[in-house]
């Protein structure tokens, strides 16, 4: 029976992570052999030969204590720095990353591609493109874990979390929920399918019928009558949403924050948490009136407002046909 002892490397982070692992393994093997060997040798060499033996007391040379404090400390600082740099790299998704949304709930993963394609427990992505996942949970804490990519991020109710990676090898890879979430935690699993770019395009075009996330968001925007207050010309009682995404917003309490996906989500579900300067706290909450997936659609729609036609906010997988 074939059984693996080491996971595949299928993302840009896998080799980085594994290299640090090898370093840690080398250090560990060194010290393990050192200590086991020393004990083995010393215990035998100095084994008790007579019951009346009384070893002479040795005085502790300070230099020895300093050496075996400072040298290990130096090694640990290397480990820290190396690990931190990988982590930092993982916290900075590139601007041209392909955005995909994930909603976790007991006990399934729901993925939403911007073009409208929806998946359950499966995620198709093109090889060689950075992929950025924006995730939230509908109920308890879950965790999105792909061992072959060496990436993991908790999926928390009430907020968005982000994970990004670039798949480097086509194939099919395990997706696991890695935060205990109840009865079927161990069945909240799936597959990541990494495809050649052309195959991915073909697969994607099967999803047109759903309408893109942004199109669905626009429909929801109209259904919920958001436009009654948030008028596109800015004349309504509420802030203009055109060009909002990515902009700095001045709040009534003096703070300035950047309007990212989390801010938009919070504004829909807890509108009084942050009031924009110069406006009244008039907006009712839509908690309970819109699902997390609905919120994602609205977020995508609002992101699309104010973008110049022909220059999307991120590079879409289907760039517009070159002008004739």
């Amino acid at each position, binding site marked *: 029976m074939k059984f693996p002892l080491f996971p595949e490397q299928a993302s840009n982070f896998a080799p980085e992570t594994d290299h640090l692992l090898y370093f840690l393994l080398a250090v560990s093997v060194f010290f393990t052999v050192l200590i086991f060997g020393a004990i083995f040798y010393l215990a035998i060499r100095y084994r008790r030969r007579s019951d009346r033996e009384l070893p002479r007391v040795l005085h502790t040379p300070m230099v020895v204590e300093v050496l075996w404090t400072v040298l290990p400390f130096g090694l640990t600082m290397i480990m820290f720095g190396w690990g931190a740099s990988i982590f930092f790299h993982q916290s900075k998704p590139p601007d041209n990353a392909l955005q995909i949304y994930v909603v976790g709930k007991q006990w399934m993963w729901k993925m939403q591609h911007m073009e409208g394609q929806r998946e359950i427990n499966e995620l198709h992505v093109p090889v060689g493109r950075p992929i950025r996942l924006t995730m939230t949970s509908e109920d308890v804490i879950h965790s999105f874990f792909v061992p072959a990519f060496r990436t993991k991020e908790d999926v928390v109710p009430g907020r968005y979390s982000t994970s990004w990676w670039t798949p480097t090898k086509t194939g099919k890879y395990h997706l696991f929920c890695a935060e205990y979430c109840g009865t079927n935690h161990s069945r909240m699993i799936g597959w990541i399918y990494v495809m050649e770019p052309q195959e991915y395009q073909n697969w994607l075009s099967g999803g047109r019928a759903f309408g893109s996330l942004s199109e669905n968001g626009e429909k929801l925007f109209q259904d919920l009558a958001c436009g009654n207050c948030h008028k596109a010309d800015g004349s309504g009682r509420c802030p203009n949403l055109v060009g909002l995404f990515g902009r700095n917003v001045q709040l009534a309490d003096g703070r300035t924050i950047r309007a990212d996906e989390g801010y938009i989500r919070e504004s829909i579900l807890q509108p*009084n*948490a942050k009031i924009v300067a110069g406006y009244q706290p008039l907006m*009712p*909450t839509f908690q309970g009136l819109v699902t997390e997936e609905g919120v994602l659609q609205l977020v995508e729609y609002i992101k699309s407002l104010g973008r110049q036609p022909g220059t999307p906010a991120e590079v879409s997988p289907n760039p517009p046909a070159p002008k004739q």
Partner: protein
Amino acid sequence: MANQAHAHAETLALREQFDTAEQQKDASTLGMWIFLITEIMFFGGMFLMYTVYRDTYFPVFALASSSLNAVIGAINTAVLLCSSFTMVLAVRAAQLGQRNAIIIFLILTLILGIAFLGVKAYEWNEKFQEHHVPGPTFHLEGTGEQGQAQLFFSLYFAMTGLHALHMVVGCGMLIWLLVESRKGRFTAEYMTPVDIGGLYWHFVDIIWIFLFPLLYLIDRHLGK
């Protein structure tokens, strides 16, 4: 001769694990200080929760806080401060071996402590009447964020409740000290229980000194 009498008083109270009365007193005092440190860590967790949520939901917390009666809270604060004063006087009386004075001051402390609890009961009853007790009938006027308002009051009741529980234990301790004082158990040489009882009482007082402004005085201005 007096020394022998003192030694006699000591040895009556000396527990067998200790060698000298001084060792016993030192151990008891250190023990009480450590216990109070654990209490700080315990209340500290609640204070941390309160701080985090007050920062997150400041406007609603300020509104909820203003519905508390700061005058009554201030009166209660004064009551507790006075009780700490009478407690100090009781400890002083014990150091001087003045049995009657110990009893009087302990009784005064107890009365003030009970008064505090009585005022607290009145306040809680008022909150109950105003439907500010978290639960199905909760409602705070002036805000749409009832969840946040309920959170304020949950923390209010949890923290003042925990404090009140410590006050009740403190009153029990005072009663015990009273009973023992009447028996003449405390002398200038042996008054450790009064001493460490005083430490506990002051600690409970200090917790209130923090609770009062944190809970009652958010965003208050004189004349408001």
